[in-house]
C-alpha cells in the first residue's frame, strides 16, 4: 500500500468544483452546530461528574438529547424586546457573534488531501496565505457581538458586561497575537495548512554541541507561547475563570441579560462554536493539527486518508475537556487581577520570549565560538544589570519593642510586652476549695 503526497500546499486550494466547496462549507457549519449540541451536553456532564452528581441523564442515551430539548424549548419561548433597546443593533449583535465564530472554522485544516468522489482535495474549506490572521480578524470582530449586545440592551448590567468584555478582549488579543508570532517565526508561513505541514518535520537543533532531533509539535518547541496562547484564548472566549463579561454573581448574566428565545440561543451557539474554533486553532498551531500523536504515528497510514480527521477531533475534544475542567476547578478572577495578568505578566513574558527565540534562530548559522561568546556576553550584561539595578532597600526588621514605640499616638492601647499574667484568683479559689486527692504533690499541680 502506498501513500501519496498528503500535505496540501496553498496551490491545492481554490481548485474544487462548486459542489465540493458547498459540501465542505456545509460540513464545517454542521460541525459547528453539532459541536455546540454535544459540547453543552459534554460540559454539563463533565462538570456534573466533577461536582459528584450525574448531570443531565434522562433524555436519550446518557442524556444526549437534553441540549436538543433545551434548544427546542428556547426557540418556542417569547422573544422579549426591551423598550429602551436599540432595535436594529439588538437584533444584529448575536448574528455578528455567530457569523464570526463560524467563519473562523473555514480555515481550520481537518485533515490532509483526500479523495472525495474522485477529486483530490484537502480536508479544509479554504486556506489563504494569511489564514491565521483571518482567525484573529474574526475574533476581533466577535468583540462587536458582545459589546453591541451589551450596549443595545439598554440596561445597566448588559452595558457593564459589554464594557468589561471590550477591555478584556482587546487586552487578551495582544497576548494572543504575540504568542502566534513565535509560531510564524519557526514555520515561516501564516497559512494554517502550512503550519501543520511545518510541524511534521523534526528539526535538527544543535544544543550546546549536541545534535538533537526535536519533536515537531510547537506545543513542545514553543512551550511558553503555547501556555500564554491557551490562557489568552480562555480570556478571548469568555470562559471561566475569565468569564467576567457574564459574571453571574455580579452582573446577572452580563451582556446577555436582556436576551431571550432564539437570540439567546444564538449567543449560546456562538459561545460554544467559539470555544470549539479556538480549540481547533490551538490544535492547528501547537498540537500538530491533524497529525497522529506519537504511538499512533509509528503506523505509516496514520497520517493518510481520512484517519487524521479522527486524531483532529480527538485533540479538539481533549482541549474542550480542558476548558470544562478549568471551569469546574477555578474561581473567577477579580477584574483588576485579570487585567494585571494580561498586561503585566503575559505581555512582557511574551516579548522576552520572542526576543530570546529570535536571537536563538538568528545565531543558529554562526560559528560555535562566536555563538558562545555572544551568549556569554548577553548573560554577563543581564547579570550585571540585575546586580546594579537600583532596588528599593527592604525596610530594616524592627524588634518588637521598636515596632511598639513607632506606633502613632492614639493607637490602640497595648498591654506591656513583658506582662506576666498572674494566676487567676478564681483558679486558686477552686483549687483551694477542692478536696486535695493526694496531699503529697498538691503544689506542683497548681496554676
Amino acid at each position, binding site marked *: 500500500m502506498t501513500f501519496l503526497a498528503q500535505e496540501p500546499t*496553498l496551490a491545492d*486550494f*481554490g*481548485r474544487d468544483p462548486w459542489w465540493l466547496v458547498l459540501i465542505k462549507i456545509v460540513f464545517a457549519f454542521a460541525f459547528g452546530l453539532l459541536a455546540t449540541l454535544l459540547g453543552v451536553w459534554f460540559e454539563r456532564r463533565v462538570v456534573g461528574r466533577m461536582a459528584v452528581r450525574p448531570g443531565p441523564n434522562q433524555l436519550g442515551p446518557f442524556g444526549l438529547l437534553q441540549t436538543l430539548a433545551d434548544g427546542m424549548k428556547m426557540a418556542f419561548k417569547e422573544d422579549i424586546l426591551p423598550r*429602551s433597546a*436599540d432595535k436594529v*443593533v439588538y437584533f444584529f449583535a448575536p448574528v455578528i457573534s455567530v457569523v464570526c465564530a463560524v467563519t473562523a472554522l473555514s480555515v481550520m485544516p481537518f485533515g490532509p488531501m483526500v479523495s472525495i468522489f474522485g477529486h483530490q482535495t484537502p480536508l479544509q474549506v479554504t486556506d*489563504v*496565505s*494569511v489564514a491565521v*490572521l*483571518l482567525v*484573529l*480578524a474574526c475574533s*476581533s*470582530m466577535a*468583540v*462587536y457581538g458582545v*459589546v*453591541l449586545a451589551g*450596549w443595545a440592551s*439598554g440596561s445597566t448590567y448588559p*452595558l457593564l458586561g459589554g*464594557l468589561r468584555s*471590550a477591555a478584556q478582549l*482587546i487586552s487578551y*488579543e495582544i497576548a494572543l497575537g504575540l504568542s502566534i508570532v513565535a509560531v510564524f517565526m519557526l514555520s515561516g508561513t*501564516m497559512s494554517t495548512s502550512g503550519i501543520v505541514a511545518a510541524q511534521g518535520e523534526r528539526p535538527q537543533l544543535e544544543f550546546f554541541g549536541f545534535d538533537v532531533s526535536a519533536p515537531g509539535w510547537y506545543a513542545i518547541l514553543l512551550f511558553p507561547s503555547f501556555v500564554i496562547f491557551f490562557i489568552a484564548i480562555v480570556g478571548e472566549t469568555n470562559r471561566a475563570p475569565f468569564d467576567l463579561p457574564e459574571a453571574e454573581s455580579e452582573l446577572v448574566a452580563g451582556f446577555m441579560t436582556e436576551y431571550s428565545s432564539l437570540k439567546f440561543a444564538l449567543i449560546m451557539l456562538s459561545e460554544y462554536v467559539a470555544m470549539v474554533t479556538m480549540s481547533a486553532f490551538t490544535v492547528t498551531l501547537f498540537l500538530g493539527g491533524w497529525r497522529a500523536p506519537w504511538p499512533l504515528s509509528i503506523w505509516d497510514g496514520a497520517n493518510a486518508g481520512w484517519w487524521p480527521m479522527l486524531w483532529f477531533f480527538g485533540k479538539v475534544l481533549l482541549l474542550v475537556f480542558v476548558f470544562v475542567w478549568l471551569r469546574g476547578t477555578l474561581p473567577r478572577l477579580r477584574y483588576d487581577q485579570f487585567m494585571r495578568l494580561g498586561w503585566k505578566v503575559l505581555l512582557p513574558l511574551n516579548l522576552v520570549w520572542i526576543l530570546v527565540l529570535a536571537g536563538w534562530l538568528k545565531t543558529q548559522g554562526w560559528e560555535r565560538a562566536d555563538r558562545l561568546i555572544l551568549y556569554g556576553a548577553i548573560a554577563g550584561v543581564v547579570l550585571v544589570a540585575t546586580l546594579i539595578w537600583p532596588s528599593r532597600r527592604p525596610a530594616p526588621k524592627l524588634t518588637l519593642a521598636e515596632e511598639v514605640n513607632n*506606633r*502613632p499616638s*492614639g*493607637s490602640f492601647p497595648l498591654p506591656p510586652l513583658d506582662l506576666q499574667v498572674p494566676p487567676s484568683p478564681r483558679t486558686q479559689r477552686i483549687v483551694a476549695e477542692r478536696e486535695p486527692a493526694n496531699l503529697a504533690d498538691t503544689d506542683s499541680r497548681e496554676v
Partner: protein
Amino acid sequence: MTTQTVLAAAGSVPGGEAVTFWILAPLALIGAIGMVAARNAVHSALMLVMTMLCLGVFYVIQAGPFIGVVQIIVYTGAIMMLFLFVLMLVGRGASDSVIETLRGQRVAALVLGVGFAGLVGTGLHRALADSTAAGLTAANAEGNVQGIARLLFTKYVLAFELTSALLITAAVGAMVLAHIERRREDRMDQAATMKARFRPGNYPGPKPGPGVFATSSSVATPARLPDGRLAEQSTPEILPVRELTAEDTTLKGTEK
C-alpha cells in the same frame, strides 16, 4: 500563489471579483454616507465599521490578502476604541443635536474638508505620478507577506519606526494624563483614619435616619434629638432643613 493573483496579473477582472465589487461598493458608500448622516454616535461608528470591512474585502480581492486582513483587525480595534469613547464621553443613548452652535460651521467644514482632500490628492499625485507600476507578479514574487515585510523593514524602516514612536508617545501621553499618582505618604493608615473619625466636631456613630422622632416621614424632615432639637446630620446636605407648617402637621384624616 492563488488563482486570483494569476488572473489579476493577467489584467482581466474575473467574474467573481466583479460581482463582489458591485455588491460591496454600494455597501461601502452607504456606510460612509451613513457615518456622516447618522444622528446617533454609536450608529455612526458602526457605519464606519461596515465601510472598513468592505474596504478590507476589496484589498483581499485585489490580491493583497495581508493588507486586507490587517485592515479589518486594526480598524475594528480602532473603531472599538471610538465606540468606547462615545460611551464614556457622550453617554448611552445620546444623540446629536441638530442645532448649529457655531454659525457657518457646516459650510466651513465642507470647504475645509474638500480643500484638505484636494491637498492630499494633489500631493499624492505629484509624488506618485512618475513611478511605474511593478505589477503584482513582481511585487508578490516571494509571497505577499514576505514582500511587504521586506519593504517595511528595509526601505521604509525609518518611516515605520517614526510612526511607531509617534504612536507610543501618544499612548504614554494618554497614560500620563489619565494617571493619578497616589504617594505612600498620602495614604491614611488605620490609626489616622480613626483619629480623624473621633476628632472633636465629627460625629463618630452612624448618622440618624431622617424622620426619626419627626412629625413626618419625609426625607427632608430632620430627625429630632432627645431634647427636641433638630439633628441636622439626618438630612442630606443638598436638602434644606424644613420646619413643617401647621398645615403639614395636621392630621390628613387617614388614620381612622
